[in-house]
């Protein structure tokens, strides 16, 4: 028997990290577990005879599968193909990155690239080069974001309230789905109502079986569709019960009803279905995107989607996910850029997955930011969720980047949730669908998620859906009901969404509505990035929205918070201080604003409590505290030294209003000291008492054990530095370099 293997404490610690809950796979080309460049990927190539593609990417027309046929017949500009297919891939990669090469030129060249060619070009780009390319290549100038709005119970009032919340935070597309398929019509209707409560124009979608989804669209209950799935191998395509031709028909079918749509693809689905044909994920996705363009879809949702974690399990997989979005943009299609699957248990890893695209900007940065709690997301948790919303808003502010969202104030959100839930209840009642109690409505308004609701009557939702189906209710009935129930503004907005489908302008590439119902698309708002100083710049109003996070505090906010802790009259200045001669006297030097404008230290203790502890400690050693305000400086070392020089014992304590304290002796250099509490937020009452005791012992000439500084491994500076800056500014404003130390009378 061998001895048990020795374990390293370091490795045990590393094993316990959340990143090690994720699965990591070795590359396996036969299973398609390769991000780019599988040995089975074909050589890029094209042969055209009499205007017909007879060979593409290593297959002759006789060997084509149905995907090849569709791409070869519809997807390539054969006038450009010979030119671009002869170009060096590295040269093409450079044109993508080079901001001096116009976007249109890259779009033109891409139109002649076969899937294998585009896959090879992108395999040669480094991550930051992809970001540069994405900045230039995305279709719409103004970035936007899409939310998932779902809940475990298909509760319509909660759907409506959460839809309103999402729009309040800035989302312009809302996607729902249902755990119970038959609930779909009721949920779609609630989403439509809630989405129009805070502002006009958010698009809504109900992702269900393709036939039912189209029917909901035909009746005006949803305004876009995106779950029209494409796959990179024929076998998986057919397993999905479609062909490129049936999907192309469906794409036009949506157009025929004036409904915006995009297709969905993304790495990993072929691997999960066990039929990747040994090809790399990058190549298979290049086929999907070529097919999307060939079919006439205006946009693509990709970047992994459900298979994101499969891609992320192999080397270079996250880079592959980003490259998928870029392929879409190069084909001049709307990119709805994934980031909608929680691809790791590690916060660092999932953030790193999203950050490059977030910084570069996309038509939709997420194709489903989980705007609801993770447990309510019926698509499965997204890469970012409701509990990450503040992080996301702060990331926008940190980088000065428009990620499509904005802060919302708590009371405003509560009002919007109430209005959305009330309007939906009224419509449901008016149309004879269901009745909801006041108690239920109240719980919806304040809920974090469905776990805060009483167990609902699930049959009520089914019943509502059946009535909607059987009586053929449409968006027009919603308009009428809203209007009759006293919601004319919401009625007008829902009607606006119906009018939009007759108008048809939002069928153009990358179209969204702004809150004034202007269409922003590749046609009306084209991306014009061509290097630094060009492209999308946030308007001043938008910049303000991004900068103004609800947690921000100004010096004025701080001073008014400080005022609440003031004890007027406890400390009063009493003229210039003179040196003492009592050997038991220790002087406590106060900073300029202490007890004048600043009353609470960073630890939460008031300055009065701190003084009491210091004085009590001194008294325990038979010493006496005298207070002096040192107004000439805000530096705690100089304050302590000035105090020591006035003290009969030669020992002084310096104290700043934020709570930083030290013991000084009159013969030491200013920046020396005997003991220092440098991390003010962590100093406790007992520690101040101990500092008082030690100062007393120094006064008596003994050498006490220094009190250990408190320590934490938390981001203590991040938590307190804004307050420190404000407090220092206030101290500075009260400092008077010309004034000698002042005696302070302490009216205990």
């Amino acid at each position, binding site marked *: 028997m061998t001895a048990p293997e020795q374990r390293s404490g370091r490795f045990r610690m590393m094993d316990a990290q959340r990143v090690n809950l994720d699965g990591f796979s070795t590359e396996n080309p036969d299973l398609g577990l390769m991000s780019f460049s599988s040995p089975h990927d074909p050589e890029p190539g094209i042969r055209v005879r009499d205007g017909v593609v007879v060979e593409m990417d290593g297959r002759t027309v006789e060997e*084509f*599968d*149905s995907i090849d*046929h569709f791409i070869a*017949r*519809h997807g390539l500009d054969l006038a450009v193909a010979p030119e671009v297919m002869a170009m060096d891939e590295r040269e093409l990669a450079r044109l993508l990155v080079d901001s001096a090469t116009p976007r*249109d030129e890259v779009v033109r060249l891409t139109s002649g690239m076969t899937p294998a060619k585009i896959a090879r070009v992108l395999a040669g780009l480094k991550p930051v080069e992809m970001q540069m390319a994405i900045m230039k290549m995305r279709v719409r100038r103004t970035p936007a974001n899409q939310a998932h709005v779902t809940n475990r119970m298909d509760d319509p009032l909660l759907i409506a309230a959460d839809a309103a919340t999402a729009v309040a935070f800035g989302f312009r597309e809302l996607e729902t789905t249902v755990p119970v398929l038959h609930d779909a019509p009721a949920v779609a209707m609630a989403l439509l109502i809630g989405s129009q409560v805070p502002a006009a124009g958010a698009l809504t979608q109900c992702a269900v079986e393709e*036939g039912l989804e*189209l*029917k909901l669209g*035909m*009746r*005006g209950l949803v305004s876009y569709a995106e779950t029209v799935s494409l796959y990179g191998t*024929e076998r998986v395509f*057919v397993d999905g*019960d*479609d*062909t490129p*031709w*049936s999907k*192309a*028909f*469906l*794409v*036009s*079918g*949506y*157009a*025929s*009803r*004036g409904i915006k749509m995009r297709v969905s693809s993304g790495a990993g689905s072929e691997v999960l279905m066990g039929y990747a044909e040994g090809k790399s994920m990058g190549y298979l996705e290049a086929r999907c995107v070529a097919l999307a*363009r*060939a*079919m*006439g*879809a*205006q946009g693509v949702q990709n970047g992994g989607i459900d298979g994101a974690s499969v891609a992320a399990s192999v080397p270079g997989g996250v880079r592959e996910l980003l490259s998928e979005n870029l392929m879409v943009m190069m084909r*001049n299609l709307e990119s709805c850029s994934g980031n909608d699957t929680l691809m790791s248990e590690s916060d660092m890893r999932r953030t790193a997955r999203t950050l490059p695209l977030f910084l570069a900007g996309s038509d939709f940065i997420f194709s489903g930011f989980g705007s609801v709690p993770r447990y309510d997301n019926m698509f499965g948790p997204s890469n970012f969720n409701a509990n990450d919303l503040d992080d996301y808003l702060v990331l926008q502010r940190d980088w000065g980047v428009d990620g499509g969202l904005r802060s919302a104030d708590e009371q405003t959100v509560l009002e919007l949730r109430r209005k959305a839930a009330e309007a939906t209840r009224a419509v449901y009642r008016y149309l004879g669908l269901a009745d909801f109690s006041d108690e239920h409505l109240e719980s919806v308004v304040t809920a974090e998620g469905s776990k805060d609701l009483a167990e609902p009557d699930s049959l009520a939702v089914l019943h509502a859906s059946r009535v909607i189906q059987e009586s053929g209710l*449409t968006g*027009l009935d919603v*308009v*009428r009901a809203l*209007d*009759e129930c006293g919601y*004319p503004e919401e*009625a*007008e907005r829902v*009607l606006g969404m*119906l*009018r939009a*489908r*007759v*108008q*048809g*302008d939002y*069928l*153009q*590439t990358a179209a969204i509505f702004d809150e004034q119902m202007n269409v922003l698309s*590749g*046609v009306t708002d084209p991306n014009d990035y061509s290097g630094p100083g060009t492209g999308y710049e946030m308007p001043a109003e938008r910049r303000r929205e991004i900068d103004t996070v609800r947690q921000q505090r100004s010096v004025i906010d701080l001073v008014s918070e400080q005022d609440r802790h003031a004890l007027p009259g406890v400390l009063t200045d009493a003229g210039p201080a003179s040196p003492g001669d009592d050997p038991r006297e220790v002087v406590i030097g106060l900073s300029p604003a202490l007890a004048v404008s600043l009353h609470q230290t960073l630890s939460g203790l008031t300055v009065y409590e701190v003084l009491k502890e210091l004085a009590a400690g001194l008294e325990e050693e038979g010493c006496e505290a005298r207070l002096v305000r040192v107004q000439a400086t805000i530096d705690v070392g100089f304050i302590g030294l000035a105090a020591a020089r006035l003290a009969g014992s030669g020992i002084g304590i310096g104290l700043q209003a934020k709570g930083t304290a030290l013991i000084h002796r009159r013969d030491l250099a200013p920046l020396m000291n005997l003991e220092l509490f440098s991390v003010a937020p962590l100093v406790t009452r007992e520690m101040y008492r101990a500092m008082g005791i030690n100062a007393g012992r120094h006064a008596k000439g003994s050498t006490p054990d220094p009190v250990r500084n408190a320590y934490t491994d938390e981001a203590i500076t991040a938590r307190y530095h804004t307050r420190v800056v404000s407090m220092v500014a206030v101290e500075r404003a009260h400092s008077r370099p010309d004034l000698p130390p002042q005696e302070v009378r302490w009216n205990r």
Partner: protein
Amino acid sequence: MEPLTPRAVSGRPIDELTLERARSGELTLDDIRIHPDTLLHQAAQADRFGNSQLAESLRRGAEMAMLGDEELMRLYEALRPGRSTAAELREIADGLAAQGMPRCAELVSEAADVYARCGLAP
């Protein structure tokens, strides 16, 4: 040819889609359906944008705009894998051509050809 005010399939101009008319129950589903002419106009726009495939899809959509929902779903179903023989698809294509839907007919007849080659038809 730029339609100044798009009309719905019903023929009603878009600016007549008002709250008053919705309230009185005067509006029907055909009043919120896009008109084929509008889709052709959008197709021309897509061509100017440089996306001839999107334009083609919108033109196919213009042909489908007058089809009923059930008919549309029936055609989609027929195009799904293993549903129709190549001959059946050709028959559907002929029917579409006869109804003045040449682009849809072309799509279906192409499917008949490719499904037969790739074994997607029963």
